[in-house]
């Protein structure tokens, strides 16, 4: 935060400090002090004379040192500008974090290198001291200075990517580093603020919090910011105008996507472990029992109808059936049209399958296509007795001859397709969640010079 040493009360653990009222007392009667502006003669009012060191004349925007006998001018600002208008009017009071605050000062600061600017609102409560509201691209942070010094490297040195500052067991990662200068001021401040004054600043984030360090002279002031919803501020201060439009992902946006991705990832792992164990169980339990072995004959280049196999049992539980058909085809085909028939109620499961095998040689050598065996599966066959009716047909350009074929029926085979499809289904949402998280985090870090995400503009293509 801008400014020198904290002139207000202790912020940390203030609720436990014996001399600080636990229940917020009624606000004191204002003891305003008035004087004539040294620059333009307009009347200037100081609402909190005991705490304020600088005030800005609302007429000519000169910053006045109120501790000076002659009300020395700290800086002048020629003409007002409509570019910087506080979204929360000075003097507005509102309740945030259980305490009532009054907006007494408004600052616009900018990064001297990039000219990127943001707004800061100085809040004051006579019992609890000072706080800040910082607004950047429509996103807000509630800030307090802290007395404790985090474990961090010297702010004078340009930080390395990934450099951390540690406080209360949390690690904050370097986000910004540069010089922040005051561009515009309004209201009262607890230090002699001047337009154009600048501080070396470093920001570290652990969303939704940000640790900021500012070097003012030889002293380094640390502050802790926390993301706060704009609607909460709008409602608290009863602001009538709309707040600045929100754009981009702020540095301190609560990491809801990251949290969701972590939780979903953990759930996905549990589901996959369960799925794998279940698949192992079903595979081990599958008896892969052969219930029918039927051998028949067919004449090539002819049809044969109405072959019926003996009755066989499909066991005493609902399971799948695998029908394998073998024939010694060679550059020929053997076609079976059949039906699995329940001997009790006549339910039929019609099927058809071709067995084909072709081979030869060409300029590349030997080639082959097809197989002498074909398989098909039928799901969820109820228990009971069954038989198979088949018609056969074949084609063999070589000759007409008698050939043998065989049909094998097996039951209770493991199904691997279910495992892969279920795995795919379980991974869709985690992949989406990861993509959403990555997108938000990359957007969060897009405004930082220390982003752990690669800059898309740095990709080069070579042809």
């Amino acid at each position, binding site marked *: 935060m801008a400014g020198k040493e904290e002139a207000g009360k202790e912020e940390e653990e203030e609720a436990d400090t014996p001399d600080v009222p636990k229940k917020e007392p009624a606000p004191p009667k204002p003891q305003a002090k008035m004087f004539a502006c040294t620059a333009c003669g307009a009347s200037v009012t100081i609402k909190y004379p005991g705490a304020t060191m600088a005030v800005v004349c609302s007429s000519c925007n000169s910053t006045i040192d109120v501790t000076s006998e002659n009300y020395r001018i700290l800086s002048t600002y020629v003409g007002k500008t409509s570019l910087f208008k506080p979204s929360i009017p000075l003097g507005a009071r509102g309740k945030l974090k259980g305490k009532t605050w009054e907006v007494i000062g408004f600052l616009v600061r900018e990064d001297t290198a990039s000219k990127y600017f943001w707004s800061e609102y100085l809040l004051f409560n006579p019992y609890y001291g000072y706080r800040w509201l910082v607004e950047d691209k429509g996103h807000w942070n509630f800030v307090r200075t802290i007395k404790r010094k985090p474990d961090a490297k010297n702010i004078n040195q340009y930080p390395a990517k990934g450099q951390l500052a540690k406080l209360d067991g949390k690690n904050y990662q370097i986000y910004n580093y540069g010089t922040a200068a005051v561009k515009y001021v309004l209201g009262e401040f607890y230090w002699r603020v001047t337009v154009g004054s600048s501080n070396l600043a470093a920001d570290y984030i652990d969303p939704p919090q940000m640790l900021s360090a500012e070097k003012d002279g030889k002293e380094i002031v640390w502050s802790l910011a926390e993301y706060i919803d704009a609607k909460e501020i709008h409602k608290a201060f009863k602001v009538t105008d709309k707040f600045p439009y929100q754009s981009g992902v702020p540095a301190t946006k609560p990491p809801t996507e990251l949290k*969701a991705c972590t*939780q*979903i990832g953990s*759930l*996905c792992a549990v*589901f996959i472990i*369960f*799925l794998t164990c*279940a*698949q192992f*169980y*079903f595979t081990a339990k599958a008896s892969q029992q052969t219930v029918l072995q039927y051998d028949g004959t067919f004449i090539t280049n002819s049809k044969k109808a*109405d072959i*019926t196999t003996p009755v066989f049992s499909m066991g005493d539980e*609902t*399971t*799948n059936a695998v029908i394998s058909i073998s024939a010694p085809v060679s550059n020929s085909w053997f076609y079976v049209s059949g*039906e699995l*028939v*329940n*001997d009790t109620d*006549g*339910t*039929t*499961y*019609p*099927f058809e399958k071709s067995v084909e095998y072709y081979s030869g040689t060409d300029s590349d050598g030997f080639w082959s296509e097809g197989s002498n065996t074909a398989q*098909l*599966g*039928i*799901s*969820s*066959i109820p228990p009971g007795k069954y*038989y198979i*009716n088949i018609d056969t047909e074949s084609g063999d350009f070589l000759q007409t001859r008698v050939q043998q074929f065989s049909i094998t029926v097996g*039951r*209770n*085979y493991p*199904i691997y*397709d*279910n*495992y892969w*499809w*279920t795995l795919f*289904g*379980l991974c869709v*949402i*985690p992949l989406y*969640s990861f993509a959403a998280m990555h997108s938000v985090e990359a957007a969060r870090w897009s405004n930082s010079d220390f982003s752990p995400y690669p800059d898309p503009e740095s990709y080069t293509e070579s042809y």
Partner: protein
Amino acid sequence: MTRFYLVTGILLCSLFVYAGMRGWKIIDPWAISGARPTGPGSHYHK
């Protein structure tokens, strides 16, 4: 989204277990299902 995924995951795993117990291939574009016989005329039924 986490709660939605929890529900979806439990449903998918339940479906997998149900299919595994009944020998049912969940995604089978060429699935063969049972049909009642329509009467004499096609195949011989005992």
